């Protein structure tokens, strides 16, 4: 248990890093506190589809490395991983029955980078099946609940990751975002979620949904924590040729400008609208230039998404056929094998 009175629900990765490096807390203590939180809350929240059985061994390994003088950037930090990101040797199901027993034959690049940075993986988080959905109710293994109010949804599709971070069941998490699947559950659960610019984080080892849109990104309690994870997982990767597509970096801008699309608040709940306007004022006092701009095509973005995304999904999902991996249900013909497996 924690030597000091640390509230694991509030503890940030930034603070945990400091405490770890000052030896005021060990990774084992952080992980034990996290597992205790899981024991207390998981039956109500159901953020995880699997909590790994070797969490404390991973923590001890991190503590040993620290004692040996290693200081990798996220050494001993417990994180949760969305169930569509591959960890070699682990089941990766995308919360689908068709992959319920599928074991990843390799690790995602983002996972390898986190492992190199010393993180501890707590478990696989629940999601809308194959990342299609916005509530984490569409999981083959049951819905996740919002930790702030169990009668509400946590958002989705990375709802398990969002709920895990918001409830103290992980210090941070990875999610994936195609059309809002990190940002929307982060908002629903009151945490920070970043969908990185396309090409910034390798998707090698992320189950593909809409390949022209998918990105892996951090879900954390603070913006600084999101930056800490992003710095580790980002970078070019020869195994994802869409990483590294930018020849030049965006030039650093001295005066930061925020553009608010005109009429974006329309339809918001009054509490949220108030919060939104307060945030704008906060940015202004911090020295940002905030301007309103008309986005005449904004209303067409969602219908466009619903042309592009399903087309890419249908190409990407055809691999789940019961032939090469995953569930196989035998029929009387080759074609029936497909149909029975998918039914």
């Amino acid at each position, binding site marked *: 248990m924690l030597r000091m009175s640390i509230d694991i629900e509030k503890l940030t990765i930034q603070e945990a890093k400091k405490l770890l490096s000052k030896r005021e807390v060990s990774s084992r203590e952080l992980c034990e506190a996290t597992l205790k939180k899981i024991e207390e809350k998981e039956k109500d929240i159901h953020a995880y589809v699997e909590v790994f059985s070797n969490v404390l061994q991973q923590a001890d390994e991190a503590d040993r490395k620290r004692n040996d003088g290693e200081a990798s950037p996220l050494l001993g930090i417990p994180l949760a991983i969305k169930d569509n990101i591959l960890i070699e040797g682990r089941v990766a199901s995308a919360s689908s029955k068709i992959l319920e027993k599928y074991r990843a034959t390799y690790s995602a690049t983002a996972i390898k980078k986190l492992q190199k940075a010393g993180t501890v993986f707590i478990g696989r988080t629940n999601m809308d099946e194959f990342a299609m959905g916005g509530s984490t109710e569409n999981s083959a293994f049951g819905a996740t609940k919002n930790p702030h109010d169990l009668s509400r949804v946590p958002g989705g599709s990375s709802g398990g990751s969002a709920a895990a971070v918001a409830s103290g069941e992980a210090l941070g998490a990875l999610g994936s975002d195609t059309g809002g699947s990190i940002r929307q559950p982060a908002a629903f659960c009151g945490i920070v979620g970043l969908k990185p610019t396309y090409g910034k984080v390798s998707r090698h080892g992320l189950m593909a949904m809409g390949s022209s849109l998918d990105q892996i990104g951090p879900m954390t309690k603070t913006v600084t924590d999101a930056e800490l994870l992003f710095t580790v997982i980002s970078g070019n990767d*020869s195994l994802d040729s869409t990483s590294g597509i930018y020849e030049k970096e965006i030039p650093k801008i001295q005066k930061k400008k925020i553009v608010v699309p005109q009429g974006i608040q329309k339809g918001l709940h009054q509490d949220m609208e108030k919060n939104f306007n307060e945030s704008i004022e906060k940015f202004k006092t911090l020295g940002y230039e905030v301007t309103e701009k008309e986005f005449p095509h904004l209303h067409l973005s969602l219908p466009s998404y619903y042309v592009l995304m399903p087309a890419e999904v249908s190409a990407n999902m*055809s691999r789940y056929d019961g*032939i*090469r*991996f995953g569930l196989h249900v035998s029929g009387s013909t*080759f074609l029936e*094998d497909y149909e029975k497996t*998918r039914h």
Partner: protein
Amino acid sequence: MSMIDEQEIERLSKLSRLSLTSEERTSYAPQMGKIIDYISLLKGVTEGGAKKGEGAEENSRIVNVFREDASPHTSEEFTEKILAEAPDREGNFVRVKKIL
């Protein structure tokens, strides 16, 4: 509403190798119609939308990524691991039912 009938759903399910029950077909047809209606919002705005060259500044930063068609991994390095996930195999082949 766009009319998507059950025959169309049947045809689409065959193409995507899904078997649907008649209840599923009945329930999906109007849903599919609604989706088609929604994306029909794009009708009429395809002409005169983005001007040529719009977003060029952004695109000039994007480059194609190529690599030499060389240095493959060692032969059979991953074969066993990957085939171990196959539901049915014969040696180094995935076994399936007769296709033709």
